[in-house]
């Protein structure tokens, strides 16, 4: 972490960048927040640890409008979002300086709480990111790092940065699960079971829009669900259908653009596994139109703005294609 701070100070000092976009220590050990640092002094508050899960790439849309370059720290998976935003002309490469940071998987206090741990006073991560020591009102607890890790890290798509000006820090392979296993589990269900599953999940939705607003692909200036363009403006859940409409269309709009960064599921206050929508589309795209990783580069045409003459027919796609 100190290496990151030192490098950021250097780049600020030599005028390469005008500001730094990173994470700032929170008031608890587990709630760092996204922050801009304008000088060396402010950088003393900089932090980078397992709790720094936030994908900073979307913040660069606003940062691109500022004077001068912004130094941004991107985890390997965030670099995909960065490329995708570059492809869509939403951020300005010339106004960014990307330091790729190593990633040993990201954790969340929610997962620690899910283990039944209450009254958390502080959390300490050991140097190798193997174990977490949790101090609570009711005594100290130890948790395996992997048990506090976000779902996305268990199925991480790789620790290589697809774009960066330099890379600092070590990464670690965190994959211990099959990425599409859950999608396949649902696919194998009967229609009634599928519907029951999604109904139970989506009926929790409170339409807070956190999933949308955190999503680097959902970067519309004005979401279609906030505008009058389709007579579809909605603010709150009224009937369960609206949630289906919102989530299906949201997934459709980001299909071929979603990098599977997992932010939607991370931020959902109701714990809805929203990534299951996006990942279904990713699985389908890979199957029907060939392996495609959104954000792998900033040039390739997305699968839904492309075609081949002998694409699968919609009815065959439903039957499972080939």
């Amino acid at each position, binding site marked *: 972490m100190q290496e990151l701070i030192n490098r950021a100070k250097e780049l600020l000092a030599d005028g390469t960048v005008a500001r730094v976009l990173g994470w700032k220590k929170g008031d608890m050990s587990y709630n760092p927040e996204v922050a801009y640092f304008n000088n060396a002094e402010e950088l003393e508050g900089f932090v980078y640890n397992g709790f720094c899960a936030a994908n900073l790439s979307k913040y660069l849309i606003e940062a691109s409008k500022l004077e001068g370059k912004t130094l941004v720290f991107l985890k390997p998976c965030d670099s995909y979002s960065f490329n995708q935003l570059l492809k869509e002309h939403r951020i300005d490469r010339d106004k960014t300086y990307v330091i790729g940071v190593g990633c040993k998987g990201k954790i969340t206090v929610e997962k620690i709480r899910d283990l039944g741990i209450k009254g958390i006073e502080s959390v300490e991560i050991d140097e190798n990111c193997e174990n977490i020591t949790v101090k609570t009102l009711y005594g100290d607890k130890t948790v395996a790092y992997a048990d506090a890790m976000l779902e996305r890290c268990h199925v991480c798509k790789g620790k290589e940065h697809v774009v960066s000006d330099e890379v600092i820090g070590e990464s670690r392979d965190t994959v211990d699960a099959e990425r599409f296993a859950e999608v396949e589990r649902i696919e194998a269900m009967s229609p009634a079971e599928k519907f029951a599953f999604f109904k*139970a999940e989506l009926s929790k939705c409170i339409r807070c829009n956190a999933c949308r607003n955190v999503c680097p692909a959902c970067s519309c200036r004005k979401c279609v669900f906030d505008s009058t363009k389709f007579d579809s403006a909605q603010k709150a859940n009224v009937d369960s259908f609206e949630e289906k409409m919102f989530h299906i269309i949201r997934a459709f709009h980001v299909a071929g653009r979603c990098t599977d960064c997992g932010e939607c599921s991370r931020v959902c206050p109701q714990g809805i596994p929203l990534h299951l929508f996006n990942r279904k589309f990713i699985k389908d795209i890979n199957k029907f139109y060939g392996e495609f990783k959104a954000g792998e580069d900033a040039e390739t045409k997305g699968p839904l703005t492309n075609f081949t003459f002998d694409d699968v027919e919609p009815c065959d796609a439903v039957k499972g294609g080939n």
Partner: protein
Amino acid sequence: MLKIAKVDLSKLYAAIAETADLFVPAKTAGQTNYTLWSDETVVDMDTLKTVKSPKDVFFPQSENLYTVNKVDKKYKITPEELCNRDFVVFGMKACDIQGVKVLDKVFLSNPVDSFYKARRDHGTIVALACGEPEESCFCKVFGIDCAEPDADVACWFVGEDLCWKALTEKGEALTAKVAELLSEGDESAVEAKKAEIRAIVEKLPYSNLSLEGWHGDATKEKFDSPVWDELYKPCLACGTCTFVCPTCQCYDIKDYDTGHGVQRYRCWDSCMYSDFTMMAHGNNRTSQLQRFRQRFMHKLVYFPANNDGMYSCVGCGRCVDKCPAHLNIVKVIKAFQKEEAAK
């Protein structure tokens, strides 16, 4: 002081449900929220905080106001019926009950919101003292005693029992209906429990947060503070904080075309949204800084200014737990403290 064995709670729920709708915290798809009780409901009294506050029992996220139908060339307006069925909310915590009091200030003062009032009139609140307050709790800061909730009935889990004490007429009436299931309880054991809870509260990290400088007269000073300039930046402009909050009461009124009529309904709105209070001429808050500031100024300055110093934050800590950007009212208060100290 009365009591009922924990193992018999389902009988209690069933008995209450015989004469009234019963709302309880229940777990569906891994999350605990208030739900209308039925035989199949998996009641979850152990989770301290439901994701959403129970405010939508009184002020639903969306509710119909009236329906317009066209009969030949004439329009027929049918107002939505007011709540006319008694209901019981079981398990509300002290903070959420204070939240309802905040809503009362808004909806029961003139002009009275008839939809809300009907629900308040028909609702009985059975409160539950917090067994194990959590680190995100800071109700104490607002003078709330989570060991001694103030409602129609107050309850405590003590050992293998739920202790029950009616505090109001409504509470007495409800007690009478389920009297058969209740037996005499031990007052002193409850007192001991309260002391235990209060001892935990003392140790909570946010319990000693200072609200110094936050009051109805602080508008100018806080509004113009440069602290907001950096503070809002991580904010995603989602509505999570407002929708999980027990006191946020803003709503929008919209129409839905059902194909055979138009339903006019209201639904929660969020001051964090870019189209909040959008009017024909445009929007009076054009930046996220302004919107972000609005929410906290409202909770800690504007609301006390108009309600005899009453804050419209109750320290439930839901926003602390749920904000996707790890921003919350505690951080706001602390940021201003730091700024003050620096001065």
